[in-house]
Structure formats: structure tokens, C-alpha cells
């Protein structure tokens, strides 16, 4: 027992990696702000049922296109006003955060997982297998991403699930290329050879030895990928290929209210702002993460 305590005490002497990471991350004020915005968005999404003043689907027929509460004609009942069928915009935005973050999580998880598998195996095995995978990824990259996503959704049929799937396919090449590049730079290092000399099989080499040393750029890409996914999902929703009405998805909200932009600016502005702020927050946090995880930036 005394031995174990001695070990933990020794451990606490050098700064914990997380603590060190936070030191570098917190130097970037924008990144910290971004992180707080993300945390708020997550909080709103998780507790939407308790925070949102109204049900996002309830239509208040007596309050169609009501302006925000601080304007003439607005009421304190609908803080950000209502849309063309009398639904509370604030509540729809709060529930929309749930959808947008959900899209981000699923897209990033899918493309990161697939990207790691393809990238690691391509980088490790090389040869014709690598050429096949990388050229296929080049083909995906050669097509405009939104067009490609649109085409996939058009084939599968418009729905949120299909939008998620298509976005995951479109962003996949970034992860594959990044993973492969890291693997290529790591795989000739001595510690990898040492692991092989003591008998590691290919599976162990790829996922237990190489992958942990390739994670830093992937974490950054995944964070930045969140914003791309949210943006693409909103774009697909806007074009009618993503979430279908009456789902409170930010992009779809924008699209449905477009015809009222002249006389009711709030129906378009607030979903647009929600998208802007969330995407900006993820980009800022991602940038901060990149700086914090890059060993070359450390003093």
C-alpha cells in the first residue's frame, strides 16, 4: 500500500498532461470563449425540455409573425417572436441546438471512425491497397462537397439521417488523408521497429502503437469538422434535402421563413445567428486546440 502511495506522489510532481494542456489552451482567449459557447449550446440542447418556454411544435394562431418582445407589438410571452404559423422562435432555436449538435456528433463519429480505419490501414500496408483508397478519396475531394452531399441525399431520399450519412461521406477524405499522413511519418520511427522486434502483430502495431501517436491532428480536425457538419446540415436543410418541416432544424427554419424576410426579419435572423455563433465557436475552439496540441508551439 505504501508503495502505491509513493508512486502516485511521484506522479503528481510533473504537471498533469490535462493541466498542461489547459495552460496552453487558456492562453488563447478566443478559444476559451468558443469553448464556453459550445458548453452553453450543449447545456441548452441537453435541458431543452426544461429551458424552452414553449413546445417547439405548438402553433399560437393568435400570434402569427409576432416581433421580438422588445419591439412594438411584441409580447414577453415570445422573447424572440414567432414564425408564420405562430411557433415560438426561441423554443425552436433551443430544440434546434439539440439537432445541430446531434448532427455534428454523428457525422464526426462516423467519418472519424471510418477515416481512421481507412487511413491507418492505407498508411500501414501501402501498395495497391493504399493507391485504391487514396485515389478514391481524391475522387470524392474532386467533387464540390455540397453538390456531392446533395446528390447522395437525392438518391437516398431527403431526410435528416440521409443528410448525416451524405455529409459523413463528403468529409471522410480529410480524415483519411490526415491519418495516413501521420502514420507515414510515424511508422519508420525506432519505437515502432522496437515493437515489431518484440513480436507485435499488424493489428497491435496499427491501433495500439501508431494510432495514439497520430491523434493530435485528428482531434483538431474533428473539432473543426463539427462546424462543417453543422453548416452542411443547415445548408441541406435550407435546400429542403435535410431535416423536414416541422422539425426545428436551423437550416430548415431559415428556408421556410425566407418568404417573410421583408416584413418579419426576426424569423430569418435568429436561426442564421444561431448557426453563425455555433460554427464560429467550434472554429475558435478548434484553432485553440490545434495550438495547444502542437508541440512546436510549446515553450
Amino acid at each position, binding site marked *: 500500500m505504501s508503495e502505491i502511495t509513493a*508512486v502516485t506522489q*511521484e*506522479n503528481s510532481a*510533473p504537471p498533469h498532461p490535462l493541466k498542461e494542456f489547459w495552460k496552453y489552451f487558456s492562453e488563447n482567449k478566443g478559444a476559451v470563449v468558443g469553448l464556453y459557447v459550445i458548453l452553453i449550446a450543449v447545456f441548452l440542447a441537453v435541458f431543452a425540455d426544461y429551458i424552452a418556454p414553449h413546445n417547439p411544435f405548438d402553433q399560437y394562431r393568435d400570434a402569427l409573425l409576432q416581433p421580438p418582445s422588445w419591439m412594438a407589438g411584441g409580447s414577453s410571452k415570445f422573447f424572440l417572436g414567432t414564425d408564420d404559423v405562430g411557433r415560438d422562435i426561441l423554443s425552436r432555436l433551443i430544440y434546434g441546438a439539440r439537432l445541430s449538435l446531434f448532427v455534428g456528433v454523428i457525422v464526426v463519429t462516423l467519418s472519424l471512425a471510418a477515416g481512421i480505419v481507412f487511413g491507418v490501414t492505407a498508411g500501414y500496408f501501402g501498395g495497391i491497397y493504399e493507391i485504391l483508397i487514396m485515389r478514391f478519396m481524391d475522387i470524392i475531394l474532386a467533387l464540390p462537397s455540397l453538390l456531392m452531399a446533395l446528390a447522395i441525399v437525392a438518391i437516398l431520399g431527403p431526410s435528416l439521417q440521409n443528410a448525416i450519412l451524405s455529409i459523413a461521406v463528403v468529409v471522410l477524405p480529410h480524415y483519411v488523408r490526415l491519418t495516413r499522413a501521420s502514420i507515414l511519418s510515424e511508422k519508420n520511427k525506432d519505437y515502432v521497429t522496437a515493437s*515489431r522486434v*518484440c*513480436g507485435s*502483430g499488424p493489428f497491435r502495431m496499427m491501433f495500439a502503437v501508431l494510432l495514439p*501517436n497520430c491523434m493530435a491532428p485528428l482531434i483538431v480536425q474533428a473539432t473543426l469538422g463539427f462546424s462543417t457538419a453543422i453548416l452542411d446540415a443547415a445548408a441541406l436543410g435550407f435546400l429542403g434535402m435535410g431535416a423536414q418541416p416541422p422539425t426545428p432544424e436551423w437550416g430548415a427554419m431559415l428556408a421556410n421563413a425566407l418568404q417573410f424576410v421583408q416584413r418579419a426579419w426576426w424569423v430569418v435572423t435568429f436561426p442564421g445567428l444561431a448557426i453563425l455563433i455555433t460554427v464560429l465557436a467550434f472554429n475558435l475552439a478548434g484553432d485553440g486546440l490545434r495550438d495547444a496540441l502542437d508541440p512546436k508551439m510549446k515553450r
Partner: protein
Amino acid sequence: MNEKTIIKARNLKKYYTIKDGMIFKTSSTLKALDGASFSIKPGETFSVVGESGCGKSTLARLITMIERPTFGDFEVDGINAVTSDPEAMKALRERVQIVFQDPYGSLNPRKKVGAILEEPLLINTQLNAAERREKALAIMEKVGLRKEQYSRYPHMFSGGQRQRIAVARALMLNPSLVVADEPVSALDVSVQAQVLNLLMDLQDEMNLAYLFISHDLSVVQLISNHVMVMYLGRPVEQGEKDIIFGNPIHPYTRALLAATPHVDGKDRTKRIILTGEIPSPLNPPSGCTFHKRCVHMTDICKETAPEFRSVAERMVSCHHAEKFS
């Protein structure tokens, strides 16, 4: 005990094919290692010396079974390590371990020392976590690391300590041969001595054999039993240490030995300065590969490659060997 040999290499060769050109592909053969034969007994140190690019590290990669030789074969503990089936090969891999030159690149930066040391056990044995930990701690003590360093990351150590960790990892599976690929050339001189002493102590304790690769002749002279001098992928002189160091025959060996700095005034020999670069192994000179830099070069050296033959108790490949002995 001494009758047994751990490694018996016969005419090992490793050729690489280099492809060049975009449309008209030309391929040329790089003879990284062109025929090396030797044997190592338990408790012995066999040193390989030579300039950069002479095939020392290729030899290390062949012996540790990272790569397969193009020609020739070798035996580990009497079992052929080139033609055996994969199962037997896996068992042989445990017998030969390696210590790399750069202690900063050879330890996985994401793993704690304990995990690095236990990896060989995890892969090759059925020991449980507690037993593995016990073994790792035992080895750590042997190489002069403290118990509490078990759960630290490699970046918290100095170069010398890292090399101790690397040595400890090589010993985890109780190998009979450790290939040491320039294990001290990345370290400070004072730390070099510590690591060398450690290697020597471990050799006595565990009856280890070393295949010691180095370009530092003073280190080689200190620790080896046998020496092989290589030039451009070929051994040029090979034999017992005292014989080679006492009376070098090949002009290249003599130049190398003369280039080693001596503190002692009386030991100082006349410098032999080699001119020119080491030739490209892609396009080695005709005849004796050393003839372009050799001061004793004659016509025969340009035309025919000298045989690797026995002269004055050692093997040497020089047409004029008898003249120098």
C-alpha cells in the same frame, strides 16, 4: 558452454532495388550488404565497425529479423532463421532483441515506462498484470532505474536514462543476443561510459551475446571479443580483437585505427588520411571497392576483387595483405 553458438551467419546479403524515372523506369540494385559470415558465442561481443552507409545497420535489421536477407541465411540457437516456418520464427524473435541508437526515437512517447517494458511480455507470454509488473520492476532495478519511475513517461527522462529503459526493454524476454545499433553514440561521453558499463555488467550476469555496431573504435576496443570491419557492404577484415587492433592489415582498417584519437603520446601513430568520399553503393568501383581511396593501390586492385582469405590469423580481403602482415 562455449561450444554452442547463438548466431551463425552464412554469406548474408541484402540487395535493395531502386526504381527511378517517371516514364522510363530504370531499376538499379543497391548492395547494402554483400556477403557477411560470422558466428557469435554466448557471453561474447562481436563488433561491427565502418563508416556511415557501409551496411552496419542493414546487418542489424537482418539479424533482428526485421528484414529478410536477399541471399544467404543465418541460424539462431541452431535453428535456421530464414527458411523456418512462421511459428518457429516467432519463437526465434524472442531470442534476438535490439537497442537502437537514438533513445529519443526508440521509446513510444505515449506509453509509460511500465507499459513499454511490459509490451514484450504482453505479446509473448501468458503472464498476468501483476507478474508482468514484478518482472518489469526487477529489470528496472537491474539497469539502475528506480521503482517510482515505473509510471513515468519517456519525455521525463534524460538520454542516458532513456537508453537504460531501451536496454531494459531488450532484456525483458531474456534474449540470448542483443543487437546494439550504436547504442552510445547519441549520448554524452560521461553517460556513454555508464551505459557501456551497464551493458558489460549485464553481459556477465546474464551471459548475453552482443552484436555491437559502432563507428567508435575506442569503444569497440574496450568491449569486443571479435571485430568485423566493413566497407561498402563488405567485410574487409575480420578476426579477434587483439589481433585486429594489434596488427591491422587492411589499409582501410589501418586508416580507421590511425584516425582514433589517443590521449597517450607514445601510442600516437602516424595519421593516414583517407581522401575522397565513400563511393555510392549503387555504383561501386570495379575490382577492390576500396581502391579509389587506397594509398597502396596497384593495377590488380582496379581489375579484380580481392578474395576474403585467411592471412595471419584473421580474414582479410586485400591483394597485398601479405605485404602488410
